[in-house]
């Protein structure tokens, strides 16, 4: 295809410049964007994600949420490469079923986290390009959040942001939930209503400044009554 750049000022075609040999390689990965966030409260956990699926300069879909319900008490959020997200969730769901059939009970959040760590490490030399965050209730009914890196290192947190806008959101959560860098402030424990409102505000900020985050926000609230879902619109630009 001949573009305008091939023509010089006087209307004649420009000289062809040979820059030297260029190596092209197939990359098995792609970056599909998206942000995931999880917050653990006293007796609830919230997992939220935006619903935009992008690649490079394009948006593939405005309705592709990144939260996956695993059990009645656990939700997984994964962002990164969408192909690996799909495969990983398929494998996790199969393993959950196998566990249920052999042990006659559902997997607890802590067990799912440990299992996900070994699944991810099984691909240590060709990783799943996925940033995972699990949110749910532990055996005592308290909120639990587990965050992972692409090869399976994990730990339990109170709150965590992952995905393209994670570096923007994590400091905001440190300040609002962890009360970091604030003086003379009472450390009030987070209520469910305040947590949901905070998550919505935080995603609105992320959509303002991150190109890969936007379109809509899906919030999954995990409590002993079950999992409640809310969809909130975000900037579509």
């Amino acid at each position, binding site marked *: 295809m001949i573009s305008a750049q091939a023509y010089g000022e006087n209307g004649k075609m420009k000289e062809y410049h040979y820059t030297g040999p260029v190596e092209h*390689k197939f*990359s*098995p*990965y*792609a*970056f599909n964007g998206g942000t995931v966030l999880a917050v653990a409260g006293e007796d609830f956990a919230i997992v939220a994600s935006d619903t935009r699926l992008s690649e*490079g300069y394009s948006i593939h879909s405005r309705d592709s949420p990144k939260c996956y319900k695993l059990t009645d008490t656990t939700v997984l959020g994964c962002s990164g*490469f969408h192909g690996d997200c799909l495969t990983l969730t398929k494998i996790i769901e199969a393993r959950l079923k196998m566990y249920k059939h052999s042990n006659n009970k559902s997997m607890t959040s802590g067990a799912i986290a440990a299992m996900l*760590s*070994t699944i*991810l*490490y099984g691909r*240590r*030399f*060709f*990783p799943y*390009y996925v940033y995972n965050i699990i949110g749910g209730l532990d055996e005592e009914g308290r909120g639990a959040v587990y*965050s992972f*890196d*692409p*090869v*399976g*290192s*994990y*730990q339990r*947190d109170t709150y965590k942001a992952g995905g393209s806008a*994670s*570096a923007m959101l994590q400091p905001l959560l440190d300040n609002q939930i962890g009360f970091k860098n604030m003086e003379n402030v009472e450390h009030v424990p987070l209520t469910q209503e305040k947590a949901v409102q905070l998550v919505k505000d935080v995603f609105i900020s992320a959509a303002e400044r991150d190109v890969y985050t936007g379109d809509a926000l899906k919030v999954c609230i995990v409590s002993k009554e079950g999992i409640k879902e809310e969809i909130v619109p975000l900037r579509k630009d």
Partner: protein
Amino acid sequence: MTLLSLSVSQVTTYATPPLEPSRPIARVRAGERRDYSSHPSKFLKSCSCEDGVCIDLNHGTTTLAFKFRHGVIVAVDSRASAGKYIASKEANKVIEINPYLLGTMSGSAADCQYWERLLAKECRLYKLRNKQRISVSAASKLLSNMMLGYRGMGLSMGSMICGWDKQGPGLYYVDDNGTRLSGRMFSTGCGNSYAYGVVDSGYREDMTVEEAYELGRRGIAHATHRDAYSGGVVNLYHMQEDGWIKVCKEDVSELIHRYKKGMF
């Protein structure tokens, strides 16, 4: 029938080109079919930071441990960095294998967590099979053999196995090359040189317990002050004859404030 056998024989006479790997195939572990005739570590590096794909893994630390008259002191920082982003400020870098064995983690977080958890499983199996606790020497050897099985594949782990067994206090350094050294004092991670400086200058074999705690704290605090990839809190453990105790968990910035008088 004859047609089938003809086609089969045709297929089987096909000459296959001889396999000539450009570098020796890594030794495969019994029961596993893995053939890495290419470079797995180079593959991962080539995928990262190209076309917006950036796979940064959790990395970086300072850990230290030393033996003295009253046991072994283990001190670690708590920062996990992924590239230049701090992924966690409260990472747990000490694995409590059993009440008499501790393992520290430095390097790649996933490698350390996975292999030391596997080591904990092997130690438990040893206890069940032999009705006695595993020695520190044997535990560290199990870990170093696991590392040797994957030598050259790009694992990154520097760990200290500390414990108290029939031979007394034990301290071994194990790393991803398969190195396994017994010693009186080690420090691992990218901040290790700063920690060595501090602990080497303050160490005496006949320190009191409180002095030893303070030395461990100082070593980590000063290392986090100067090393970008270390920070967070100091987790301090003391390995005694009847097991380990967790001594303290102190924020590094507060420690530096306390030591400020002697600095710059």
